């Protein structure tokens, strides 16, 4: 079944490559190296844009014995493509394959319509690889980046993502997020019973690892600001409880299992406290828990549902969902004690706010003509923009550089993840190879 998917998608890729005008629709690209037996996310670039910046990533010159599998320059090419802000030149269209600046004939690359050119060389030395890479501006014929980097031979993917981050930042001025991770929950059926798996992967869906398995629901994974821990809700005891999971050690702590709801964990920017939704005092209210002491302070007091809290970028204010007006809407409190102010008015249903790291926008689920889509409001102008076109979109999570947004949606009855570029509108989807994938959470930049 997997093989069929691959063939179909390769054919689509060829068709799309010939389309080449206006918006490039349905460019389906499947990246498959060694497909592991376990359920992994696939990747499909569903929508590219012509405004993307043309970049040539020349296959790196190799010396020594490098492991089989995806080549570093191939991974860099994919990273740049999935950002939606770049389109890379297929190696077979290249007129020459330089690996150093003095081998570059800029005229050739101008002829091919390229704006930037990445060349490099990768060497194997014992159990490590080292890469020297250079980025050129084809128009000015200037080198804008030159660096060496190294990694163990079994971690060439991290090396490639590092190069992609550098290239992205050199061109856009904004840090790249190719070295960040995604947390998400997959749902499969095993022997007629549901099987939930909390997983963490690269942003291209590769190198997924299962962190928790349960036959009861797992939801709301949230990254600690240092990227080392996940907080989430698990029903493994038959009731919802909030856990903190240390990724390196696998150590888990149940930090909230009060009567009623224990849900919607959100970390404070300093990583010391969590916002939680608890209903122990009667109905869903927002509390702040100090993680070290487990002491609670209650931040909302209303007979309506208050939930889905998230700190604003400044760490002072907080956004949350409340149905105090009759239906769910986004509210903002300037400080823990301030009166909540309603900030969404565009439709009857706006929920689960997630602010961008720069504090300019808040993203949320927005009902529009019966469809549930992802929208954002510009917090300076108040202007609301609907960003997605599908029907049952939820769980928006913004990349730490604010340039991309991941959310869950339904495709052919299956839940998939979609990533869109907030700059270009380009998108790619990450379906699970089997079953559903939902509840994406984009990690911070992990240093």
């Amino acid at each position, binding site marked *: 079944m997997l093989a069929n998917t691959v063939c179909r998608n390769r054919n689509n890729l060829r068709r799309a490559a010939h389309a080449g005008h206006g918006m490039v629709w349905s460019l389906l690209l499947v990246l498959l190296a060694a497909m592991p037996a376990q359920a992994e996310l696939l990747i499909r670039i569903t929508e590219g844009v012509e405004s993307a910046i043309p970049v040539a990533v020349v296959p790196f010159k190799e010396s020594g014995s490098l492991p089989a599998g995806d080549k570093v320059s191939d991974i860099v090419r994919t990273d740049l493509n999935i950002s939606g802000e770049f389109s890379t030149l297929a190696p077979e269209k290249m007129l020459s394959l330089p690996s150093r600046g003095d081998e570059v004939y800029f005229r050739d690359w101008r002829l091919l319509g390229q704006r930037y050119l990445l060349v490099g060389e990768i060497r194997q030395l014992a159990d490590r690889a080292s890469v020297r890479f250079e980025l050129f501006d084809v128009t000015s014929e200037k080198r804008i980046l030159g660096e060496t980097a190294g990694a163990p031979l079994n971690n060439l993917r991290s090396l490639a993502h590092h190069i992609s981050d550098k290239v992205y930042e050199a061109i856009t001025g904004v840090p790249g997020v190719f070295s960040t991770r995604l947390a998400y929950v997959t749902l499969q059926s095993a022997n007629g019973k549901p099987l939930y798996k909390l997983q963490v992967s690269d942003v291209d869906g590769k190198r997924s690892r299962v962190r928790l398995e349960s036959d009861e629901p797992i939801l709301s994974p949230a990254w600690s600001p240092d990227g080392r821990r996940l907080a989430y809700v698990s*029903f493994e005891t038959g009731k919802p409880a909030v856990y903190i999971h240390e990724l390196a050690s696998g150590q888990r702590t149940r930090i909230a299992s009060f009567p009623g709801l224990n849900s919607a964990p959100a970390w404070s920017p300093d990583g010391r406290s969590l916002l939680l939704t608890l209903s122990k005092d009667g109905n869903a209210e927002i509390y702040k828990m100090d993680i070290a002491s487990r002491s609670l302070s209650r931040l909302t007091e209303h007979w309506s549902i208050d939930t889905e809290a998230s700190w604003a970028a400044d760490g002072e204010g907080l956004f949350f969902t409340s149905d105090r007006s009759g239906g769910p809407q986004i509210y903002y409190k300037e400080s823990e004690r301030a009166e909540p102010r309603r900030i969404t008015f565009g439709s009857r249903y706006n929920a689960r706010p997630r602010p961008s790291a720069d504090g300019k926008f808040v993203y949320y689920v927005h009902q529009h003509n019966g469809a549930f889509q992802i929208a954002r409001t510009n917090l300076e102008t108040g202007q609301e923009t609907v960003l997605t076109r599908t029907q049952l979109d939820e769980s928006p999570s913004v990349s730490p550089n604010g340039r991309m947004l991941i959310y869950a949606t339904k495709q052919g009855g299956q839940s998939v993840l979609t990533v869109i570029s907030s700059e270009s509108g380009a998108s790619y989807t990450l379906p699970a190879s089997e079953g559903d994938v939902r509840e994406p959470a984009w990690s911070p930049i992990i240093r």
Partner: protein
Amino acid sequence: MNISMHHKAFALVLSLGLFAGCSSTGETVQDEGYGTDVSTVDQTGGSTVYGGGEDGGVSSSALTEAERQQALLEAEQAAEAAKRDITTFYFDFDTSEIKPEAREVLIAHARYLATNPGQKVRLEGHADERGTKEYNLALGERRANAVQRFLIVNGASRGQLETVSYGEEKPAVMGSSESSWAQNRRVELIFK
């Protein structure tokens, strides 16, 4: 007590002429004869239909007053028990209001719980897949709490009732249509 016993109790009472054509909805279904009684309780609650021929075959003169009272009681209990066959209650989108048609059935459950204080029930609240997962968790809880309050007001005690919300995580029916959504917005009573 199983359904066929309920039927026998009804048949007995009907044959005595005590029901004189009065089912709870005022609707009587004439059947071919004795033993083909119909007893259905639909989701809208209360529309119970009983059938039974007049050629009953049990003579009233053979019954004492005590037996007659006993038959009446059993019939009532059977009617209550039949109502209690319904354990799932549905809600409109983004609401937690108990529908009027669910009330009679919930009252039967509450009475049963009042007379069986050892009986525990888990109230599981659910939402349809639309909207956000955490809001739906809170919505499922609000639905379960609404049912819990209704049961308490009608005689159950708090200690018998435990609530949990699964939000949109455990749909009863798969699919993204109005009819699947309607079946997924629910509270289920799980007797333990």
